[in-house]
């Protein structure tokens, strides 16, 4: 998640805690994964957290990484006389990221985004939608129900509306810290 700048990757929720452990000088290695894998990793993290909470004996956190990955672009709508090409992308494991037209900002495009934001807000299973200069981000409830609660209390800031401008090659990547 960024404030509107292009990003090449998004850290999945399962690894927010690891990102939080990084210190200046640490090395970060990204690995491309799939959305399904991201959800499984989140369940793994949350299972671990709930074990600790329940006072069970826990072993070291499993940090093995899956190998499969998938394309980030979920749908494309070709350009029309009034709208540039619309591209829907996976944005991390909880958001959709939608871009309009080429990588150019204009008041008209921003107005077009606002026009859609208002309509998406009325959909009942969208948690939040944020309009940015050229895109909008949406968080459908289906992605957060039941599996996200424990981690949300620990390290999620999704109560704060935020913007994701993922850029043309945003992928769900996994992050881990390399001990050197």
């Amino acid at each position: 998640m960024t404030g509107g700048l292009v990003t090449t990757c998004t850290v999945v929720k399962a690894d927010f805690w690891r990102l939080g452990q990084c210190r200046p000088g640490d090395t970060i290695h990204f690995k491309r994964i799939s959305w399904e894998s991201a959800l499984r990793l989140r369940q793994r993290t949350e299972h671990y957290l709930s074990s600790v909470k329940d006072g069970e004996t826990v072993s070291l956190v499993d940090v093995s990484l899956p190998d499969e990955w998938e394309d980030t672009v979920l749908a494309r709508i070709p350009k029309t006389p009034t709208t540039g090409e619309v591209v829907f992308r996976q944005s991390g494991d909880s958001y959709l990221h939608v871009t309009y037209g080429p990588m150019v900002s204009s008041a008209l495009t921003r107005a077009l985004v606002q026009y859609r934001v208002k309509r998406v807000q009325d959909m009942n299973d969208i948690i939040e939608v944020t309009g940015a200069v050229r895109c909008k981000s949406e968080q459908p409830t289906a992605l957060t129900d039941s599996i996200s609660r424990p981690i949300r209390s620990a390290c999620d800031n999704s109560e704060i509306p935020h913007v994701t401008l993922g850029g043309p090659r945003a992928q769900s990547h996994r992050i881990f810290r390399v001990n050197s």
Partner: protein
Amino acid sequence: MSRLVDLEHSLTGFSESIPSRVFRFPILFDDPLARAAIDEYITTLRNSAVYLPDNVEYVAKANGLENSSVIKKSLASCRQLVVGISFLAGMPFMLPLDPRYVNP
């Protein structure tokens, strides 16, 4: 996902006005206070960057312009739509309402 795509297909026209308010602000370029702030930045934070010593000149260069006069004219003579506030603390993120003007 399919509902979002359906929504996109259902929106053919675009005829809605967006509520907005008009603010008028005086603007100064190369004024002594801004100059002093940049000098302090150069002295205390970093002394070399693409946007130093004159960030308006940098914006002009980044937009392929000879000098900053077009940028200044665009800011001073075209109404801007503020679409965000405080990406940089206290600063508006603006887009010119007339596309003929430069959008820095």
